[in-house]
């Protein structure tokens, strides 16, 4: 399943969020939440010279379904 949702930034530029899972190629449109897509870079270290900087993203969707296939390391 391919979950696809979009949101616009402050300049009305549209961004598309796509989550691809292992359960087929059918496409499903989802509605993103109030904080649709937030990225964060690891900034725990107080110094710039950390060896690796990891990044995370949080996608918020409003859904009536469980969408279990999203909760997979391969999604």
């Amino acid at each position, binding site marked *: 399943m391919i979950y696809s949702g979009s949101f616009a930034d402050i300049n009305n530029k549209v961004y598309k969020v796509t989550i691809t899972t292992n359960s087929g190629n059918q496409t499903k449109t989802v509605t993103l939440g109030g904080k649709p897509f937030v990225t964060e870079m690891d*900034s725990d270290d107080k110094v710039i010279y950390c060896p690796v900087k990891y990044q*995370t993203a949080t996608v918020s969707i409003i859904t009536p379904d469980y969408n279990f296939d999203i909760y997979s390391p391969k999604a």
Partner: protein
Amino acid sequence: MGFVEEREEVEIECIDALSTLQYIKYSTQSKDIVSFLYLIRKLLQNCNAYKNFYVSNNIQFQKNGTATVLDKLYISEENFFDKKEDNEVDEDVAWTMQEVLEEICQYLGLTAVADGDSVYFLDYDAIRHGRNSYYKYSVDDDSAPTLETISFSKTIKAEDYSESGATLSLDNVYNKVSVQADLYTFDSVLPDLFSNLQNITKDYDEQITIPQQTGFDTGMYGTFVKSKIGGDNSDNTNAIGVVVKPMEVKDPDIIVVKYYNSPAYRFFKYDSNGRDITDSVKGLNYTDTMFMCGATAAKFFVKRGKDFYLGNSNSEIFDNLLSFNDVNKIDFTNYIMFINPFGSTTPVSNHIPNSAITQYPFLETTMNDTALVFGGENSYIVISGSIMFHEFNYYPYPVSKYWLGNSGTMRAGEGYLLCKLKWNNLFWNGTKWTESESTF
């Protein structure tokens, strides 16, 4: 996580592929002495996400050199396994691939950052001095690297980030910037329904304060209480205690109630002829609400009790009933009560049929329209809450669950709220503001 509402807002956490290395143990067929290039390639292949990696060519063996160094630096894989105790195997003592990567980066003085399908091994000192040459390697094959120039500069302007929770900090080091855009976070568009309420509970109700004879088998009785906590002498702190026996059975519902108005909302009320009498209603008691058609904010305490009737006055009887039922504390719950009674009893029924509901609003905000307009593409406005419905005529309170049974089941066409969202002269139709009225 539990799913409670029909639609839930679900947050999905994603991590970059570099982060997955923390879950993979370093493994090897034989612990050889391998090059840094071999090691980095092996680690990034396990991410299964990257095609290329770039390494700053600032590290050289010779002054002003430009050669690649990763293929000339070697290390033993033995370093990535701790000492084994008895009965332990390599897998038990192996480092994670994340630890290996971090050690390599620490040794080289580089910082690994993923972007798209590539990983960049950055040398901040080199960047600071304008050295922006990188060797581009392929993750999946041994092809010779190519030398490329990569640089990026950004002038941070006001429109690059927004308020509403955004933080922007810039330390002395130029890369220590964290920005979290939080553009559309209207947590609450409408004012709180239960803030700044004004108590309009009357201090009299002839119907419920009529002295009872001996016990009571039907109907109700009640008394009045005044809160001793909060407010000054001019504040209305009235509350009404009522004992009601729905369906005229033995055990009663014990109710304590207070009625309110709100400066942010208008709770409409209509007489039996459908006339708006909202402004003429200055106070409410329990009997008023039995024959009322409209809405009010209220705080209720309801408990189904055991019948006990003893005392010389309604107040005394009520106190004794509370004591008998071990009620020594009254906790109120906020409600918005919508009443639309039906039936042919006196007074004449003023039930508003479904076909006419759009002409008789029950609840409306009194907000100033000059605030900023919200909404737009991809906006999703949710009206959420819980609803309790019952069809017991002339019992204007949230009856205890004992009485609901099947009668409390909401049937199609009953117990729904028709809403519309209007801002100035525009109506929200679910996706945008229009001049045509839309209801939900």
